[in-house]
C-alpha cells in the first residue's frame, strides 16, 4: 500500500488515489439523503465529493484542498431562484401578453437561458477556483463573466454559420480566456491553446457525423437536377392535416437517393456519438499541454482509450444488471399470474418494484461516481506531469477576496456544470 500511495517518485507528477476508499459511502449517503430531503442535500453531497476528489489528487507531492461548503452552494441556489423565478414567469407571460411575440417565446427563452448558462459556467468556475488550495495557496479567477458570455455567443454564432467548422477555434478561444484568468496565488496561468491543435480529432468527428450525410444529400440533389416536384408530399387520405410521400414517385431516383440520405443519417450520426470520448480525450490532452504557470508547464500523455474504458465498464455493468432484474421481475410476474395469489401479492409486487426502482437508481448513481467520475478523473490526473515544477515554488499567495457561493447557485439552478467537473 505504501508503494502505491505515498509521495510519487517523480517530482512533478500528478497522481490520484488508487483505491478510492470511502467514496462509496459518500455516494450512498449523498444519494439517499438527497432523496429524502427532496434534493436539497445535493449541495452537501457535491461538496463532499469535491473535498474527496481534491484531497486525493496529489500535485507535485502535495494534495489539493477544497474549502467550499454545502451551505454556500445552497444559499447561492436560493438567490439564483429568486432571480430566475421572475425571469421564467416573464418569459412565460411574454407569449401571452404580446401576441406578435408568441411564436418567438421559445427561441427567446432558449437564447436567454443560453446566455445565462454561459454566465453561470464562468461564475461557477470562479467559485470552485476560490475554494481550491494547493500548498496553502488559494486559487482564483478574475476576468468578466459578461465578456465570457459575449465571447461564447460570438463564437457559437460563428460555429453555426460555418456549419461547425469553427468549433475547435471556439473551444480554444474560450479555453484561453478561462485559463488566462485563472490565478494560483498571485501568479496567472497562461494557455497557448489553438484551434489547429484539435482540428484533426474534430474533423474526424465531423466527417463521420456529417460527411456521408453531405455526400448523400449532394447525390440526391444532383440526381434530381437540384429541383423537387411540387407535389412530392401530398395530403394523407386517412389523416387530414397530415402529409405523406406521394406514391407516384416511388422507384424514381428521388425516392432511392432520399432513402439513402435517411439510411446514411441513421447510421453515421449515432456512430459519431462513439467518437465523443475520443474527441474529449484529445482536446483535454491538447489543452493540458498548452497550459502553463510561469515556467512550469503541464504535460499530458492522455490516451483516448482511457476515456472509453470507464463508459464501456459502466454500460456493461448496467446492461448486466438490467438483464438480471428483468429475469427477476419477469419470473415473479409469471409466478404471480400462474398462482393467482390475489391482491395481497400484488401489493407486495408493487412494493418490490418500488424498492427495486430506488435500489437501481442508487446503484446507478454509485456506479457512475465509482466508475466514470473516478476513472476519468484518474485518467486525466495520472497522465499529467508538471515540467519545471521548481518554478512553482515562487508562487506567492494573493490577498484577493474569495468568491461567494452565489456564483455557483445560478449554475445549479440552470443545471450547467453544477455537478462535479473534471479539472477546471
Amino acid at each position, binding site marked *: 500500500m*505504501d508503494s502505491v*500511495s*505515498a*509521495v510519487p517518485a517523480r517530482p512533478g507528477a500528478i497522481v490520484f*488515489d488508487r483505491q478510492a*476508499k470511502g467514496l462509496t459511502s459518500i455516494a450512498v449517503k449523498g444519494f439517499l*439523503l*438527497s*432523496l*429524502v*430531503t*427532496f*434534493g*436539497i*442535500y*445535493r449541495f*452537501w453531497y457535491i461538496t463532499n465529493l469535491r*473535498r*474527496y476528489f481534491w*484531497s*486525493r489528487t*496529489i500535485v507535485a*507531492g*502535495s*494534495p489539493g*484542498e477544497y474549502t467550499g*461548503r454545502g451551505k454556500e452552494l445552497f444559499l447561492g441556489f436560493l438567490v439564483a*431562484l429568486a432571480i*430566475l*423565478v421572475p425571469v*421564467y414567469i416573464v418569459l412565460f407571460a411574454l407569449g*401571452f401578453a404580446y*401576441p406578435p411575440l*408568441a411564436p418567438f417565446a421559445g427561441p427567446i427563452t432558449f437564447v436567454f437561458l443560453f446566455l445565462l448558462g454561459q454566465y453561470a459556467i464562468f461564475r461557477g468556475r470562479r467559485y470552485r477556483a476560490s475554494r481550491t488550495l*494547493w*500548498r*496553502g*495557496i488559494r486559487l482564483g479567477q478574475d476576468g468578466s463573466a459578461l465578456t465570457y458570455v459575449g465571447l461564447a455567443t460570438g463564437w457559437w454564432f460563428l460555429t453555426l454559420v460555418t456549419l461547425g467548422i469553427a468549433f475547435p477555434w471556439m473551444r480554444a478561444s474560450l479555453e484561453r480566456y478561462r485559463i488566462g484568468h485563472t490565478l*494560483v*496565488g498571485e501568479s496567472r496561468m497562461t494557455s497557448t491553446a489553438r484551434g489547429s491543435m484539435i482540428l484533426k480529432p474534430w474533423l474526424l468527428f465531423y466527417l463521420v457525423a456529417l460527411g456521408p450525410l453531405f455526400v448523400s444529400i449532394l447525390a440526391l440533389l444532383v440526381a434530381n437536377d437540384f429541383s423537387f416536384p411540387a407535389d412530392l408530399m401530398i*395530403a*394523407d*387520405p*386517412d*389523416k*387530414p*392535416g*397530415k402529409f405523406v410521400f406521394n406514391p407516384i414517385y416511388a422507384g424514381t431516383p428521388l425516392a432511392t437517393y432520399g432513402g439513402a440520405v435517411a439510411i446514411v443519417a441513421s447510421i453515421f450520426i449515432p456512430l459519431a456519438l462513439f467518437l465523443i470520448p475520443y474527441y474529449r480525450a484529445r482536446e483535454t490532452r491538447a489543452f493540458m499541454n498548452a497550459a502553463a504557470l510561469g515556467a512550469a508547464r503541464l504535460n499530458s500523455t492522455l490516451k483516448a482509450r482511457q476515456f472509453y474504458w470507464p463508459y464501456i465498464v459502466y454500460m456493461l455493468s448496467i446492461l448486466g444488471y438490467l438483464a438480471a432484474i428483468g429475469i427477476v421481475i419477469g419470473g415473479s410476474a409469471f409466478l404471480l399470474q400462474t398462482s393467482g395469489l390475489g391482491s395481497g401479492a400484488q401489493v407486495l409486487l408493487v412494493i418490490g418494484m418500488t424498492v427495486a*426502482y*430506488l435500489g437501481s*437508481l442508487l446503484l446507478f*448513481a454509485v456506479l457512475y461516481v465509482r466508475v466514470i467520475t473516478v476513472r476519468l478523473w484518474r485518467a486525466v490526473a495520472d497522465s499529467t506531469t508538471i515540467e519545471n515544477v521548481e518554478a*512553482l*515554488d*515562487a*508562487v*506567492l*499567495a494573493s490577498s484577493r477576496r474569495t468568491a461567494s457561493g452565489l456564483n455557483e447557485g445560478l449554475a445549479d*439552478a440552470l*443545471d450547467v456544470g453544477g455537478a462535479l467537473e473534471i479539472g477546471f
Partner: protein
Amino acid sequence: MTVPAETVTATGTLFDGRSARPNPVTLRLGERLEITGAGLREDWNPFDIRAGETEPPTMRIGLAGNPVRVEFTDRALAEALVARCPDLRLDDEARGGVLRLVLWSIAAGVSVLLVAIYGVPVAAGILAPLVPQPVESRFGLAVDGQVVSLLGDPPLCAEPAAKAVLDRLVARMTKGAGLPGDPVVSVRRHKVANALTLPGARVIVLSDILAKAETPDEFGGILAHEFGHVAARDPTRAVITAGGVSFLLSLVLGDLTGSTVIVGVGQAAISAGYSRDAERAADAYGVAMLIRAGGDGAALASILERIDAEADAEGSLTGFLHSHPYTKERAAKIRSLAGGTRPDKPLLSKEDWQTLRGICPAEPRTPAKPATTPL
C-alpha cells in the same frame, strides 16, 4: 489526562501560506508539537491542531484559522496526533449536524408540496379570470389544434342544416348566462363518447355523444355541463395549475432522478382531486342552465350513466372520461338538483333533433384541412 510519555519525531514539509515554496521541517510531538526547519520554528498547542481531509498516510495539519500547513506521511506521528489532539477532526465552521439539515429540508419540501397541492389551485382560481379575453381565445385556438391532433385528427362535422340547429340551441342555452365570451362549439367524428372544454370558451363534442344521446335534453345536458366549465374558467385554471405545480415541483425540488417520479405522481393526484370538485360544480351549473332553457335537468344523469355503463361493458378505458369519477354519486346529485318536475316538451323538436344527429356526414368527406386549422 494522561501525559504522553514518549516524543514522536518525523520529517515533513511546511507551507507558510505566503508562498508555495516547500520548507523541509522536523516535527517533534511531545506535550506540544514543535516544528523546526531552516530559519523556522513553530510551537503548536495540540488542542489547536486541525487535520484536513487527505488520503492516508499523507496527513495535512494546521492551526484553526491559520494559513500555515504542514504535510507529512509518517504513520507513527499520525497515530500520535490522533491520540493527543482532541479537536483534530473538529470542523470549526460547521453549524449543526446533518440531521438538522435533513429535518429542515424535509420540512421545506413538505411546505412546497402543500403549496403545490393547496396554494397553486387557489392562486390559479384567482388568476384565471384576470387573463384577458383575446389572450385566452388565442390560447384556446392553439390548444384546440393540439387536442385535435392528440385525438388523431378526427374530421370536423359541419352539415350546414345541423350546424344551424346546434348554433340556435347553443345561443338559446347561453342567452343571459353571462359566460365569459361566446362559446365556440365544434363537433368531431370520434368513436369515444366525450366532450371537452378548452380555454377561450371552446367546446369540442365528439360525435359518439350524439349517437349515445337518446333525447335532445341529454345532449343539451352534456353541453350545459361543458358550459359550466366555461363559466368557471376551468380549462384556463387547469392550465395555470398544471404549469404552476410542475414549475414548483421540478425547479424548486431539483432534478434528482427520483423526484421526477414524485413530480409525475403528485401532478396526477393533484389534478384528479381538483377536477372532481370542478366536475361537481359544472354538473350543478349544467342542471340549472338546462332547466332555465326549458330542458330536463335529470337528462344529464341519464346520459352519464349510459356512457359509464357502456364503457364498462366494452371494458375499455374511455380516454378522457376517467377524470369523470363517481358516476353514480354524480347522477344522484344531479337528480336531486333537478327536482321531480319534467318539462312537457323536449329541448328540440323531433325534426331539429333528427337534423342535429346527422351533423356528421355519412361518409368522411375529402380529406381537406378542417376549418379550424390545427396549429
